[in-house]
């Protein structure tokens, strides 16, 4: 079973600041970590590999510094790491990122399963996983909370929804995005860290991947960011306490008063 896990390097904080002029995230002075949801993707890949054999390849698109998150993934037990790095990749939106990653996966050749985190904690779009699947023209199951009965031919997944879950059978190759309920990611090991420090990381440029230059980076990004702003703080809520009959009456009066009903 050949498994590719796509991970993203994100700033180590949920309290990111935005440059008001460029409308982009300010990354200076903030440590980078593996997008937390992607650690569940790595763990799931490792578990499937431990059961069925094969290899877990971890991949990211980013600047050369993104090697550090790849090494962290290697220290958890991934067998190989690939960095897609090229000046022309810069400024990619979710579409261009999905395209570039899909080119990287094609370059690997035979891949059975691709695993992504459900979303990145900085961008929060949850689009890249499905985007890759679309470009590779393979099935995609998002919000996977459990994988059952996996073998070379296919698997059954529980797809978590707000009210419960769907049970979905899929053939392979396929792409899944995972939620954090799926497992508990392991800690790296010392031997893993020592090996990861010395490991060779494969670099691919746009030319290596035979990318269409109009489809990558800023140029290949149809998204236009007009404005980014922090949403205004919500007003203070009010809780009516007391007997249900009284509180319901108060609520109705308040809603009428405000012209909502």
């Amino acid at each position, binding site marked *: 079973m050949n498994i590719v896990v796509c991970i993203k390097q994100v700033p180590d904080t949920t309290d990111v600041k935005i440059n008001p002029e460029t409308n982009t995230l300010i990354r200076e002075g903030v440590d980078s970590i593996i997008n937390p949801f992607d650690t569940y993707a790595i763990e799931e890949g490792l578990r499937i590999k431990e059961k069925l054999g094969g290899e877990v390849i971890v991949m990211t698109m980013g600047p050369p510094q993104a090697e550090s998150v790849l090494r962290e993934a290697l220290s958890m037990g991934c067998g190989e790491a690939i960095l897609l790095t090229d000046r022309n990749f810069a400024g990619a939106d979710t579409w261009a990122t999905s395209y570039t990653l899909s080119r990287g996966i094609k370059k690997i050749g035979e891949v059975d399963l691709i695993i992504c985190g459900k979303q990145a904690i900085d961008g929060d779009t949850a689009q890249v996983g499905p985007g890759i699947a679309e470009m590779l023209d393979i099935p995609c199951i998002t919000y996977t909370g459990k994988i059952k009965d996996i073998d070379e031919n296919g698997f059954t997944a529980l797809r978590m929804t707000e009210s419960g879950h769907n049970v979905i059978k899929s053939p392979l190759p396929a792409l899944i995005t995972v939620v954090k309920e799926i497992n508990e990611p392991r*800690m*790296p*090991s*010392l*031997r893993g860290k*020592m090996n990861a420090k010395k490991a060779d990381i494969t670099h691919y440029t746009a030319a290596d991947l035979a990318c269409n230059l109009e489809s990558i980076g800023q140029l290949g990004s149809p998204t236009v960011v007009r404005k980014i702003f922090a949403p205004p703080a919500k007003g203070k809520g009010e809780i009516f306490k007391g007997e249900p009959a009284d509180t319901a009456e108060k609520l109705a009066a308040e809603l009428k008063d405000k012209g909502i009903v």
Partner: protein
Amino acid sequence: MNEYNFTEDQLMIRDLARQIAEDKIRPVRAELDEKDEFPEEIIKILADSDLFAIFVPEEYGGLGGGAMELCIATEELSKVCGGVAVSYAASGLGAFPIILFGSDEQKKKFLPAIASGEKIAAFGLTEPNAGSDVGGMETTAEKDGDDYNLNGNKIFITNGGVADIYTIIAMTNKSRGARGASAIVVEKGMDGFDFGKKEDKMGIRATVTRELVFEDCRVPAENLLKREGLGFIVAMKTFDKSRPGIGAQAVGIAQGSINEAVEYASQRIQFGQPVSSFQAVRHMIANMSTKTEAARNLVYHAARMVDSGVKNISKISAMSKLFASDVAMEVTTNALQIFGGSGYMKEYPAEKFMRDAKITQIYEGTNQIQRDVIGLKVIKENKSGKKK
């Protein structure tokens, strides 16, 4: 140079132990303290992360470190939970006699499983009538054909019942007194080896302290370390190597309590300002930090001397344990003071640090005994012209 001149591997050990302590131990430490049992899940995580391999030579499945590596990991774990740290470090204590005195065959047999964390080790010296005075030892190991026949009780044994591999000191020839003791490796499950009273402790409750009971326990003679009569030498050399580890535990506990106290003091407002702005509190923090830093450096120095292979390490090793544990007791008491009334409550971690600190002044030789060791050594050195 980094702050303490750590090697790259040592930095890696520190970072990994810190990560495990923060992510996996901190969320459950209060529960572990309450439950008073061996932290099996956490120990499994430490094992999977190769932390049991860092004090075992490479040729026996380890990563080839020594006392210093064990100190670094123990300090980090102790910053969050002194109990988990002991459950971990005591496996090193049980392994040291085998590392120091075992034959190649014995090392091949026992060390790989200790290095992988698949098996936990323990060290059994103390008895009801043999605490500080090991001369009072009553447990016997009589040679009988190809076996030793063990009879007697060991008390207060860390990882008792949990460990698979026990280095036991017992009398093989009572008439020879101190030269009649021997070190023998006993494995859990051997006939006649059982476990007795489990202690209900004041602190380090995330570790099991239990009695070992030997009743005609037959141990193959091949499990004898080195040769008969070396039992107390094995014990002393083991402690020389392990005492900096107790120092590291003490430093970790002290530092952990400082970290929490400083955070609290910066947030707690009285008289319209954070209590950390009062000179009385700041000076306390300054003294606590300075003493802990001094203890840390003494511990690292002792551990590095141990690993350097120089001969006379009893004194520096005892000094590191003595000083660091006294500092830990003082520092944790003051950390609690900084928490005010909240510090006295179990809801906050201050009182646990204080309870956990106390043991470091007692085990692996009480601090009175450490002073005996140090004093005697200094006087001897002085007489033989080796003045500092």
